């Protein structure tokens, strides 16, 4: 059994940032991730980030990931890649199992396990893509937009020749752009709502590349025997119901689903953290305070696992959780307080503007009343 000060689950931006903060303070930290390649979703983000200079604005996500990894390794953060956490017991004893073995096979009944004795745990395992159930949704070729992004930007493989993108939020718009950069045709983006949810500048890029965006449209079915051969869409009325006679077929071999993400809450749930349902944050999320501590003392949450936002907020929350997870062992000193205050200010900056109103309200409500605001509609 290994003893660490902090055990971090997930080597994405939040997890790596947490590990770095602990190591900077001289703490022993181990970051566990099921992927042999660390960096989480950051390694797929080949576009330049928004925000300000201190938020790495103008830098491509994939380059930020490389910088984080280098910093983590230089500071002596232990990385256990290809391992998965399967239990967190009071105290906290954290059990991990090898998900991908050295001989390149998957885990079996007798895959090696290890136990860590951790004084604090940071849950930073991110999110899962929401599924959308329509006739034919299980055909090969129907995949998450994030999945398509993994194929083109990490595996350097095209998912197919022609794509229908479902969802015009930022993920749908950005992945469409990246599919075009990868030499894949996007026949159209459909969006059930009457408005495009993502940033205007992301929509503008793909519109001038000739990709139509059909608002108030839904997918009726995917066609094909085992694999996608086409998609049929229809316009919807004010009650989300398809309007007869508006069906239209697209000749596509891939359907990407970009209808939102929800936080990964399995480990939080297993460990006994109280979850609350927050639509603005993507669904069930561990209740946490301003220091990102859950209802189980010593268990923290950061990044998309604490509510669906972005890479830049994940980085900041990771830093905050790392400091809080390590410092809980002693009184937080003045320097620690100043750093935490600076992080919270940068998080407020990132959550400014009309696009983030729901998130600001939800995070604030979680942290003050422990409840979630009722949605307006």
């Amino acid at each position: 059994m290994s003893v660490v000060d902090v055990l971090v689950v997930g080597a994405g931006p939040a997890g790596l940032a947490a590990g770095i903060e602990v190591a900077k303070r001289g703490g022993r930290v181990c970051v566990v991730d099921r992927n042999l390649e660390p960096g989480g979703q950051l390694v797929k983000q080949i576009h330049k980030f928004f925000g300000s200079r201190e938020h790495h604005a103008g830098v491509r996500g994939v380059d930020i990931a490389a910088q984080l990894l280098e910093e983590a390794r230089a500071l002596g953060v232990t990385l256990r890649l290809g391992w998965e956490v399967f239990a967190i017991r009071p105290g906290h004893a954290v059990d991990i199992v090898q998900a991908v073995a050295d001989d390149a096979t998957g885990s079996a009944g007798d895959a090696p396990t290890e136990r860590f004795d951790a004084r604090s745990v940071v849950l930073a395992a991110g999110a899962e893509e929401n599924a959308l159930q329509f006739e034919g949704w299980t055909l090969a070729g129907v995949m998450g937009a994030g999945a398509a992004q993994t194929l083109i930007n990490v595996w350097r493989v095209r998912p197919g020749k022609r794509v229908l993108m479902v969802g015009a939020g930022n993920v749908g718009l950005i992945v469409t752009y990246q599919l075009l950069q990868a030499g894949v045709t996007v026949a159209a983006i459909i969006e059930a709502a009457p408005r495009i949810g993502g940033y205007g500048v992301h929509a503008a890029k793909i519109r001038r590349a000739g990709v139509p965006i059909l608002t108030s449209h839904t997918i009726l079915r995917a066609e094909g025997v085992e694999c996608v051969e086409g998609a049929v869409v229809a316009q919807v009325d004010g009650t989300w119901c398809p309007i007869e006679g508006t069906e239209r077929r697209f000749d596509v071999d891939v359907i990407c689903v970009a209808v939102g993400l929800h936080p990964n809450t399995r480990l939080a749930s297993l460990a006994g953290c109280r979850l609350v349902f927050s639509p603005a944050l993507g669904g069930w999320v561990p209740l946490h305070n301003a220091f990102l501590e859950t209802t189980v003392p010593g268990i923290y949450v950061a990044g998309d696992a604490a509510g669906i936002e972005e890479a830049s907020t994940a980085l900041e929350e990771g830093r905050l959780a790392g400091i809080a997870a390590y410092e809980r062992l002693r009184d937080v000193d003045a320097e620690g307080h100043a750093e935490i205050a600076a992080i919270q200010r940068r998080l407020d900056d990132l959550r400014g503007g009309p696009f983030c109103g729901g998130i600001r309200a939800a995070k604030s409500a979680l942290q003050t009343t422990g409840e979630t605001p009722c949605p307006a509609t």
Partner: protein
Amino acid sequence: MPGNLSQDGYLSLDELRSAPGVPSHDRMRRGPVAVIECVQEIPCNPCEAACPHHAIRVGTPITNCPVLDPEKCTGCGLCVTQCPGLAIFVVDLSRSGETAAVTLPYEYLPLPEAGELVDVVDRSGEVVGRGRVLRAATTRATDRTAAVTVEVAREHGMNVRGIRREEVDGNGHDR
């Protein structure tokens, strides 16, 4: 073609006219000038730092839309490749011969070559005419965003925002 940002995904000329980053027609006729087509309040400010002439102001909070000072702007185009949203262009309506030059950010392969004739498109992706590529280049400082300058008919100076992409595969070969 009229557009509405949240429905069609691109700005109409009306929406543009009231944007603080869009200079007057008169200014465009005097020489190259930046046109910042950014109208939503998003936390983002690399354009401010990119301009060596301090012609772009965002300030705080960083959700402010960028404001262009058309008198300080020289149309150098450094901002074009720094905007993460690829929302900044340079337009020059001062050229002779009834032409305009539009500089736009470009992140596809193949990169066009100077002298090439291309189809030019408006914000909705519709082809509005032909254009001649004057310049197309990336540098280390632009971090893989190319600046492409294309000569178009003058009346298209405020319309053309892209060049038509051929159906190419990732190897740069025509399909």
